[in-house]
């Protein structure tokens, strides 16, 4: 009888990645943990303060507000981008030059750097020189993202939808292309309606790519910084100040390294928790199949 021998030598192939991750993520994270329990004045003057910064950060109402805004923002863009991405994918041509052209057009926003996206929308939304702002003035809507919090939110959400719906659309498009033709043939034989084809063939087959899309978009939007920073600078007031911007204000603006480090760790734990929930859900859904 032959016994299967478990060989772990392949793990050595992972070593380069492990070393890169160690230098780029683990060591900085360890430094952040060290900072979070100290009051740092300069590299040579620092005092141990224990859990004081954590208490301050967790009880800080500004951070509660930023966290709430962050969740509202992430869920808003998910509610819009996922159905819209599916619709765009369903409408994209599947064959010929039209398919290639549609793919290129849809992918363009994804190729634009984040700070440029912010700048584009900053100009686009201005009533004097921007097309969107001018259009809103033309139809008689008083729109100013620099002074009105609702307008600022609308612009930030629209900007994200414009920038990232293509990602969901492309993921769904690839998922749709992977469905074998026989499923559609069977649906035609059964005289299934367009809705029935979507509900019982396309949507179930899109589950995996949609989960990846939701995970990517949630994580990315939860850590958003550049676009709102360029567009509104977190304002008016602090209406579009999200978690990462609060963190940067604290760490770089005020140079409060200790509280900022504690804040980073709490932020990291929230992201880790959400990632784990998503990951577990994905794995369990795949197991159920």
């Amino acid at each position, binding site marked *: 009888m032959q016994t299967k021998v478990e060989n772990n030598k392949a793990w050595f192939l992972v070593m380069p990645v492990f070393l890169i991750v160690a230098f780029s993520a683990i060591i900085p994270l360890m430094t952040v943990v*060290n900072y979070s329990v100290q009051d740092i004045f300069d590299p040579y003057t620092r005092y*141990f303060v224990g859990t004081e910064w954590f208490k301050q950060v967790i009880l800080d109402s500004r951070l509660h507000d930023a966290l709430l805004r962050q969740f509202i923002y992430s869920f808003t863009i998910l509610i819009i981008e996922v159905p819209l991405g599916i619709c765009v994918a369903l409408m994209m041509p599947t064959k010929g030059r039209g398919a290639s052209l549609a793919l290129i057009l849809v992918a363009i926003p994804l190729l634009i750097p984040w700070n440029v996206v912010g700048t584009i929308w900053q100009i686009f939304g201005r009533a004097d020189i921007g097309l969107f702002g001018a259009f809103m003035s033309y139809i008689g809507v008083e729109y100013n993202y620099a002074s009105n919090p609702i307008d600022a939110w609308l612009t930030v959400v629209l900007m994200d939808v414009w920038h990232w719906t293509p990602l969901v659309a492309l993921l769904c498009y690839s998922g749709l292309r992977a469905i074998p033709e026989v499923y559609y043939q069977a649906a035609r034989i059964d005289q299934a309606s367009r809705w029935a084809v979507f509900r019982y063939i396309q949507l179930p087959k899109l589950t995996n790519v949609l989960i990846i899309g939701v995970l990517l978009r949630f994580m990315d939007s939860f850590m958003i910084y550049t676009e709102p920073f360029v567009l509104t600078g977190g304002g008016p007031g602090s209406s579009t100040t999200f978690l990462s911007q609060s963190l940067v204000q604290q760490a770089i603006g005020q140079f409060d390294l200790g509280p900022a480090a504690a804040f980073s760790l709490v932020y990291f734990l929230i992201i880790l928790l959400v990632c784990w929930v998503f990951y577990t859900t994905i794995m369990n859904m795949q197991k159920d199949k």
Partner: protein
Amino acid sequence: MAWMSWTLPTALFFIGIAAILVGMTTWQIISPCVERRGFLPLATTRGDRLFIGLLSSAFIHLAFVALTDVNIAVATVLCAVWMIILMRWG
């Protein structure tokens, strides 16, 4: 190492984490685990339970720091008990 601003508590914390990882790896090599279902609502491996335990311990510590004035060592002891329960029956 001075640039990393080490303190004794954080050094002990990371030594503890490293010891847990080494211990778990050794345990896995000596006796490989199988996925099982305990009181948690999902099937877990030993590593999953460790991760859940560490993550929940972090939140328990944060809750203690934010909501009470009790010494943080109490939270650590509670978390140790929680980890044992989770690893054994989770």
